[in-house]
């Protein structure tokens, strides 16, 4: 039954892809078919994976493709099903949103091709999460990369877009190379390509190979997940693609890297040596911190969100790292807690990052710019979008009572409990990581004050912003759905954690949701001996009561006594948008405090008319330096290109030289023959 549902979902996506490609001459029809099929397929997949998580035994299906050498086999075990659930939940909403979002493009762009690749992306994602042998996994993996590439470079007439797409595909392919090596090392050991033959295999290998495979997998998947320092493609590629695609990219595509790591760390490895966990934890902290720090300096709304994806991937990796370390320390329960925290955050991030990107999409479509400095005051023109975006911002900043808070709280609990698990110096890593997580969260909050306030609040900063209009109904519906998702995942945490039982059972042989839920499902506890508890539902309840009992009546009473007046403008008549605090100004203190990292450059050009004290116009520009791009990748690229150019001398055009190559080779080989 589940198998049929899953397969039908796949088939619907396939049909949608083909149909919309066939309809490329009728944009409207193509759009409806593409989005409709995507939506239907997602719903089918949603039910299938929801059922599959709790099904007694994994569901194995073999697809009728390939050739005698390679089989295209998929298996839905709880882990796959969970990620599939994330995918389907997000994809359904995004497809709904796309109905309205794509309408703008009708006639201007080839929606048939878009629909094709869009459905193909969903299809390949589902297959990545469920592929059950190394070969097919890589095929799905690359198809996913390919369709993402085509969607990223959908607006390929812009050079920035082209470069971003190419950079993405090249880096992703390099990562695939690492994966290929790692998988084949395992295959050589097990003699089969099937994932089931890799189960706990890696831990049985000699330490050196074990470490090599681990690192290969970590970086191979890390490229896709966008961990520092392999992240450089992410802030380029996510902003330039259409916003519904960005939502998918940030929401789920980068999660394939997380899925791969989960699969490797908790399925292929039994009890890994502790250094592995340490490495992952360290990378997680670095990604989280750098991601948010760069996000703070960003004034391109979508780029800012892209940087935050790096940050959240870092938070997820902290959970993984902790889980690995706990496993090495033999703390199955704590490992479970950390794993749950990571997986929970994965789902949450899919929700609120999807929501934020959809919101950004509506804003960009309304204002025709991605630059926050040109927006402002949108909360009046786009109230629904604003509300949804606000909820997303609160959620991603990890503030109660929404879902981001719950998963970050679980992460804290795991890190906190870690201190007691060992006497060695490594225990210090846990609290340090915890405090840096706190810093990250606080900076994220600061960043989202900016990201919400500058575009949505105060006065519009440009004409486009002034006459922006609210998004179309389907788009609103999509955003609203995700907002509701964020709220429910926050308040219903105690219900949702039960989902993890089968996964942790499969991965670690522990299922703890009963220990996590307290006070009849009112409160959530880390399940450690006497850890603290939280009850997001309780908080929300109190807020509601208080609001209903005091806020509303009093507010109504006070409104009678209130008048509206102008803002205090220091006596200078008339407050205009020019007086407003800009995003650049908002992030200035942090730019100065972290200048060691940013190396900011500023240019000020002022034009004077009368005296130098009264400039008629001032142009202020402030740039920061992206360290990795400038210090690591730039030089690397130049080196390689220089080397290649030098090697071109081999083909210098002289036939005598060409003959000489052959001659020398011949002599050498002859001597080799005689000697050997």
């Amino acid at each position: 039954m589940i198998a049929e549902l899953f397969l039908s979902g796949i088939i619907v996506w396939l049909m949608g892809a083909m149909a919309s490609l066939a309809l490329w001459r009728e944009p409207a029809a193509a759009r409806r078919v593409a989005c409709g099929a995507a939506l239907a397929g997602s719903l089918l997949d949603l039910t299938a994976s929801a059922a599959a998580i709790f099904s007694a035994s994994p569901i194995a299906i073999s697809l009728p493709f390939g050739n005698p050498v390679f089989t295209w086999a998929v298996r839905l075990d709880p882990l796959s099903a969970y990620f599939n659930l994330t995918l389907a939940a997000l994809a359904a909403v995004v497809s709904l949103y796309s109905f309205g979002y794509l309408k703008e493009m009708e006639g201007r762009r080839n929606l048939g091709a878009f629909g094709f690749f869009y459905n193909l992306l969903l299809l390949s994602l589902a297959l990545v999460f469920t592929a059950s042998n190394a070969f097919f996994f890589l095929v799905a993996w690359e198809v996913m990369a390919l369709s993402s590439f085509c969607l990223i470079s959908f607006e390929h007439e812009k050079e920035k877009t082209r470069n971003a797409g190419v950079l993405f595909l090249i880096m992703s392919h390099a990562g695939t190379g690492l994966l290929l090596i790692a998988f084949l090392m395992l295959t050589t050991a097990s003699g089969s390509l099937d994932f089931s033959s890799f189960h706990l295999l890696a831990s049985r290998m000699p330490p050196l190979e074990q470490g090599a495979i681990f690192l290969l997998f970590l970086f191979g998947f890390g490229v896709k997940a966008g961990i520092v320092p392999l992240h450089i493609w992410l802030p380029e590629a996510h902003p330039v693609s259409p916003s519904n695609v960005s939502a998918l990219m940030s929401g789920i595509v980068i999660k394939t890297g997380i899925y791969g790591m989960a699969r490797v760390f908790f399925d292929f490895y039994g009890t890994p040596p502790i250094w592995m966990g340490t490495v992952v934890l360290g990378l997680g902290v670095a990604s989280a911190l750098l991601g948010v720090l760069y996000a703070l300096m960003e004034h391109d709304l979508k780029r800012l969100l892209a940087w935050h994806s790096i940050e959240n991937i870092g938070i997820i990796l902290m959970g993984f790292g902790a889980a690995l370390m706990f496993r090495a320390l033999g703390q199955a329960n704590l490992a479970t807690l950390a794993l749950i925290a990571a997986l929970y955050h994965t789902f949450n991030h899919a929700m609120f990052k999807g929501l934020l990107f959809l919101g950004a999409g509506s804003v960009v479509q309304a204002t025709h710019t991605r630059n926050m400095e040109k927006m402002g005051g949108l909360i009046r023109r786009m109230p629904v979008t604003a509300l949804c975006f606000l909820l997303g911002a609160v959620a991603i900043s990890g503030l109660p009572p929404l879902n981001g808070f719950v998963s970050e709280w679980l992460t804290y609990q795991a890190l906190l409990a870690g201190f007691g698990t060992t006497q060695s110096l490594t225990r210090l890593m846990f609290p340090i990581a915890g405090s840096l997580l706190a810093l990250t969260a606080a900076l994220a909050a600061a960043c989202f004050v900016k990201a919400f306030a500058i575009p949505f609040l105060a006065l519009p900063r440009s004409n486009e912003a002034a006459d922006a209009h609210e998004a179309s109904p389907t788009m609103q519906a999509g955003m609203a759905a995700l907002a509701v998702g964020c709220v429910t995942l926050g308040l219903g945490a105690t219900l949702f954690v039960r989902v993890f039982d089968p996964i942790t059972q499969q991965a670690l042989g522990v299922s703890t949701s009963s220990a996590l839920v307290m006070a009849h499902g009112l409160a959530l506890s880390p399940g450690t001996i006497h850890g603290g508890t939280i009850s997001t539902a309780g908080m929300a309840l109190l807020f509601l009561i208080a609001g209903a009992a005091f806020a509303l009546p009093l507010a109504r009473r006070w409104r009678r006594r209130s008048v509206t007046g102008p803002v205090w403008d220091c006596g200078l008549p008339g407050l205009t948008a020019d007086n407003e605090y800009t995003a650049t100004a908002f992030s200035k203190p942090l730019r100065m405090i972290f200048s060691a990292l940013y190396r900011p450059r500023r240019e000020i050009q002022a034009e004077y008319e009368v005296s130098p004290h009264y400039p008629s116009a001032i142009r202020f520009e402030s740039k920061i330096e992206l360290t990795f791009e400038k210090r690591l990748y730039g030089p690397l690229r130049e080196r390689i290109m220089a080397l290649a150019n030098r090697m071109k001398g081999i083909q210098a055009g002289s036939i005598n030289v060409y003959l000489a190559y052959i001659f020398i080779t011949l002599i050498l080989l002859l001597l080799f023959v005689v000697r050997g």
Partner: protein
Amino acid sequence: MTGQIIGRLIESIAQLCLLLAIAPLVTGVIRALKARMQTRRGPGILQPYRDLYKLFRKGMVIPETASWIFVATPWIVFFSTVLAGLMIPMVAAEAPLGLFGGVLAVIYLLGLGRFFLALSGLDTGSSFGGLGSSREMTISALAEPAMMLAIFTVAIGAGSTSLTQIAGAAIGQNWRFLAPAQMFAFAALALVLIAETGRIPVDNPDTHLELTMIHEAMILEYSGPYLALVEWAASIKQLVLMTLLINCFWPIGLQPTWFGFGALQGIAWLLAKLLFLSCAIVLIETVNAKTRLFRVPELLAVAFTLGSLALISTFLF
């Protein structure tokens, strides 16, 4: 079962009243002491109550550029602060709403309030508001890791982030705070408290010079009842943090439960300790001058170092 719930309810209401009642008092006391230290006569310690009363009865001016965020913020700030206040042990080790969240929840609830306060600062479009929000978010972000380290140290001692557990573990061993780890953590948390409550040398609560003010700049556009709410919330937040500090590190007189005469004794102890801490704060405020904004990170770096020292010393001793 129901008995428990009712018990919790009573505790909560009691603590709620306590919070609302003595929060302005603490502010008042601090102001008065400060005046005395500066050999001014200064306002009486009940001045804050008068201010609130007056403000609540005034009308108010809503900026025409403001959106519903501006109106919603005071409520959210107030409620989240009060809710945080109900999660900490004040009189009894048993925090009334301990079930709803521990120390992390407290911090994040305060964070929620700050988030919306900053939004409202930017909502009006006045550049003062933006200035205030930007500085507030920056400083609080930098304060966060130090606070978290200190709290971790304490929580590790108690093996829990539940304040009930922490305080409970502290009960009885009244001189525990002499342990190096505790002292470092205390120092760290104290510095954070100064930063969070916007006191000299980080911020100056009673000035309206745009160069120096942070918190005041954010709420510059508020007037009447909403200003009252925000100010009240600010003083409650200050009370909460102070209580957190003293009851975690210095649990003398902390009662096991709210019921019985112990409660009164507990309240007395609480007030005494608050008074002591206020004196300390006043001392600090008077002997220091407000530092430049870009010196604040150094202060918080010190706090962070103290926090990590605390950790390491728990690790050593």
